[in-house]
């Protein structure tokens, strides 16, 4: 086992705990936006797709990398736009509601 692998495993384990920790306090009404938002975040595979396409030596690698870039872009762009659209709905509140929230906060 290389040091490199060990470093990746460390990042992996810590991220797993962070992932569990931040989610455990989410009210259930936000579960759908949350799922959608995390869906967008794993669209970061776009970076991976860029790297493999950018280092493709053969035609096959090029084709696969190209398809991966398209799919990953769909994931990341679609994911963020859908989430934003969902959350937009939570914002449109009547003025009375806003006042109430402020009262609650104070």
């Amino acid at each position, binding site marked *: 086992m290389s040091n490199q692998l060990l470093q990746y495993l460390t990042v992996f384990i810590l991220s797993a705990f962070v992932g569990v920790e931040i989610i455990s306090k989410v009210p259930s009404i936000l579960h759908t936006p949350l799922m959608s938002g995390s869906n967008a975040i794993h*669209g970061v595979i776009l970076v991976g797709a860029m790297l493999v396409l950018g280092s493709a030596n053969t035609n096959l690698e090029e084709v696969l990398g190209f398809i991966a870039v398209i799919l990953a872009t769909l994931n990341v762009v*679609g994911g963020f736009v859908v989430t934003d659209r969902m959350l937009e709905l939570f914002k449109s509140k009547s003025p009375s509601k806003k006042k109430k929230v402020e009262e609650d906060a104070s």
Partner: protein
Amino acid sequence: MSRGTLIDLAYLVAATTFIIALKFLGSPKRARLGNLIAAGGMALAVLATFFHQNANGKGLLHIPLMLVGMAIGVVVAVPAARFMQITAMPQLVAIFNGVGGGAAALVSITEFMHIKSGHPATYVILEVLLGVLIGTVSFSGSAIAYAKLQELMTGRPITYPGQQVINAIFGLAALGLIVAILVTASTVLLWVLLADAFILGIIFVLPIGGADVPVLISLLNSFTGLAVAASGFTLGSNLLIVAGTLVGASGILLTRMMSKAMGRSLPNILFSAFGSVVTATGGAAGSDRPVRSGTPEDIGVMMAYSSKVIIIPGYGLAVAQGQSALRELAEELEARGVEVEYAIHPVAGRMPGHMNVLLAEANVPYEKLKEMDEINSDIATADIALVVGANDTVNPAAKNDPGSPIYGMPIINADQAENVVFLKRSMRPGFAGIENELLYDPKTILLFGDAKDSLTKLVAVVKGM
């Protein structure tokens, strides 16, 4: 600072924004900001990647092709995400998740071809295999989940003779292929594994149906995260490992919370072919039994003179696009001094929180939405429980009938209200395909018709009084 360090720094910033975003997504006030922050981090990461150089100081090849691919992605994704009906949200999440899984599988397999000549270590091959396997299962599984929700195919569980045996064969084949590839490092076998994983994804999802599909999407979302993390190991990218693992870990937790809300364990949801055991309750209960139905006038008057109405919305409301009419009815009732609250079952709609999104769209005030546990304690004080387009989430069989497939699922105790009003299109059972005894209860009144029409009529009655 060298170029590589700067890029890594950008990745670190991006990874941090993802963590902040997930945290913000947990609070109604900051959720939208969180999403924007993550999008910003993502843009930074993508931008930085364009400046990537390999160990020999060579930049990325095929950049024009890359830009074309991204342009295609944007042109397809933005309109789909912007203009799809809000009720179709779960399908959209399913399909965007699926393509992410597909991308992760392709990244892994392409990287494998690339590094194969260098005789990679066994653990590197294992990372590739996991990326391909999990990513592909997520891809084909999400495609089937999409088809089920979009009603391109039946939403019911699909079972066939020998299902377990067939599943076992493909599962064992995957294991055998993994071992064989670890030994031989064969690209051909890797493609066979991809094909096998594709079929596995399909047969894994086919027997899951009805109300369980949302839980499934959450699980597949988590799968894609893990596939991305596996690709991150292969590519040596901390960013991919962090982001993928965050999603994988939080997705599994979310999946558990969702199955808990349905009172069932995850293995039970995944492997029990839910709706196929309906016969236990459905048998005797023919739909020709007498029910009490009322006119909009009867029901409107009844509601106007009550003191507390609890509204229990379900997916049928969204299908009929009746959210605004519902809010109008609530406002009319409140103008007459009636106390109105909404009881939201955790799995109302098609995903947890889906109903909140739908009602928020119709400007229903956020604080009127009560979660199940909160409302169940005082539902007995309500004069009327108004069930709009919901069914399974108020079915008392979940509490009383151990033979029912939904037995043990937490429900909203609509049956404890003094009167129950159902707005229903027909006597057809709900998404899970189970007969609802509450419909035949003497204190229940049914108003048949499209939910939106019925609500509009009720508004007119209450207004006219």
